[in-house]
């Protein structure tokens, strides 16, 4: 199967439609509906327990075209948060005591308002996380980015699927492993990942294929020893994240004949303990256009929040949003399989 370097949208694929993805995921295939599985675990309806993380997805522009991307991001995407919407996000944040701001994309750093969001969130005393693809740090136009992030004590959560160059490049594009290591060295040189620096560098690994992630603990040990031995790179924590059966990973599953097997694997591995701790219960996701969602995955599937709560960040209300009912679908098996999966790794 050829590695695509353009987004589903740019290629005019049917799967670029969120509605088509939802139709496919909900069309049965012999799998129990996620809500039925939740009910059997006495967890339906799933409710939010507050908002600990304010996740802002600033858009779909990215300098990479990873094969598993749930955003369908890439260099050909133009959706991008405006300054006006970014200001609405910060006004909403100021009206709350949410401790953490998690900025994602695309490559979030390519949004013109990224640095404004960082500076303003820090001014409000919030912890800021940047979902970084690493290679963006090497772009000539971003030469001062790493120092900027360090200067504002931004926690970096960086993607590195494998310590094997071939696997990383297979998922994230040719040459990405080498660029990732170069960027990690830049971050280490600034103090990121080093004890006592206060600069946190966490890595994220997604399986390079249609299988579940390994134990987070054992994989962290493996990455730590291999990256130190082979590249002299250090980091703080490693998060294992399950690939969600949506967007470009869904395309891979369908084209490689792995869709049914992967969905069966997720369904069979449903873990009630993981479901009880899914990230949507304690986070709110803001889209590039200001619309609100339960999580980044619901955002990409355009599954709006349930009734009775604000739908847009301009109407942000922490009390009602922190007690909302979560909208679910069969893609949610991805977060509830095995040890569970969230933007912060396993949930159990």
């Amino acid at each position: 199967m050829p590695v695509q370097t353009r987004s589903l949208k740019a290629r005019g694929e049917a799967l670029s439609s969120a509605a088509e993805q939802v139709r496919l995921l909900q069309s049965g295939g012999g799998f129990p509906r996620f809500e039925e599985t939740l009910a059997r675990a006495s967890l339906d309806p799933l409710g939010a327990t507050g908002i600990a993380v304010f996740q802002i997805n600033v858009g779909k522009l990215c300098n990479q075209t990873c094969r598993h991307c749930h955003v369908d991001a890439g260099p050909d995407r133009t959706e991008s948060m405006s300054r006006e919407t970014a200001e609405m996000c910060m006004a909403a944040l100021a009206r709350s005591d949410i401790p953490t701001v998690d900025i994602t994309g695309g490559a979030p750093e390519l949004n013109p308002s990224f640095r404004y969001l960082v500076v303003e969130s820090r001014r409000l005393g919030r912890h800021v996380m940047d979902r970084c693809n690493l290679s963006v740090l090497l772009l000539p136009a971003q030469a001062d980015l790493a120092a900027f992030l360090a200067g504002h004590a931004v926690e970096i959560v960086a993607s590195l699927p494998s310590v094997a160059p071939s696997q990383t490049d297979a998922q994230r594009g040719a040459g990405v492993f080498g660029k990732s290591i170069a960027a990690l060295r830049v971050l280490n040189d600034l103090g990121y990942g080093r004890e006592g620096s206060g600069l946190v560098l966490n890595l994220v690994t997604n399986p390079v294929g249609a299988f579940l992630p390994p134990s987070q603990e054992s994989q962290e040990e493996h990455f730590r020893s291999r990256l130190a031995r082979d590249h002299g790179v250090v980091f703080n924590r490693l998060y294992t994240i399950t690939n969600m059966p949506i967007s470009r990973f869904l395309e891979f599953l369908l084209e490689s004949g792995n869709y049914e097997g992967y969905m069966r694997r997720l369904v069979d591995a449903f873990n009630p303990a993981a479901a009880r701790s899914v990230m949507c219960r304690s986070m709110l996701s803001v889209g590039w256009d200001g619309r609100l969602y339960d999580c980044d995955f619901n955002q990409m599937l355009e599954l709006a929040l349930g009734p009775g709560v604000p739908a847009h960040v301009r109407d942000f209300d922490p009390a009602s949003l922190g007690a909302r009912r979560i909208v679910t679908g069969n893609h949610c098996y991805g977060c509830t399989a095995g040890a569970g999966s969230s933007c912060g790794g396993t949930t159990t």
Partner: protein
Amino acid sequence: MDTYYHPKDLAHFADLGKGNPALWEKFQAYYGAVFAPGALTEREKSLIALAVAHAVQCPYCIDAYTQASLEKGSNIEEMTEAVHVACAIRGGASLVHGVQMRNAATKISM
């Protein structure tokens, strides 16, 4: 086409328990204990199992421990090396019997 091995049969492995549940349960308990983390990690044990699967040429085991090795965090390079270890031992085992051949030949030769 009918074949002796069917990939879907792997899912019916537990049917063996129907013939003798007591022995099946003992095997399961032993199997589970063998693959639990111990002096070796689960990842290392999966790689050993993958190599052995190739040595005994069990297609079900190859399928199962290819997936298990990936899910325990191994990569293709490591898994390929494990298969080479199995290959080296299989090949070496044949070759070392060559000493027996040489001994036998020496005995009956002038």
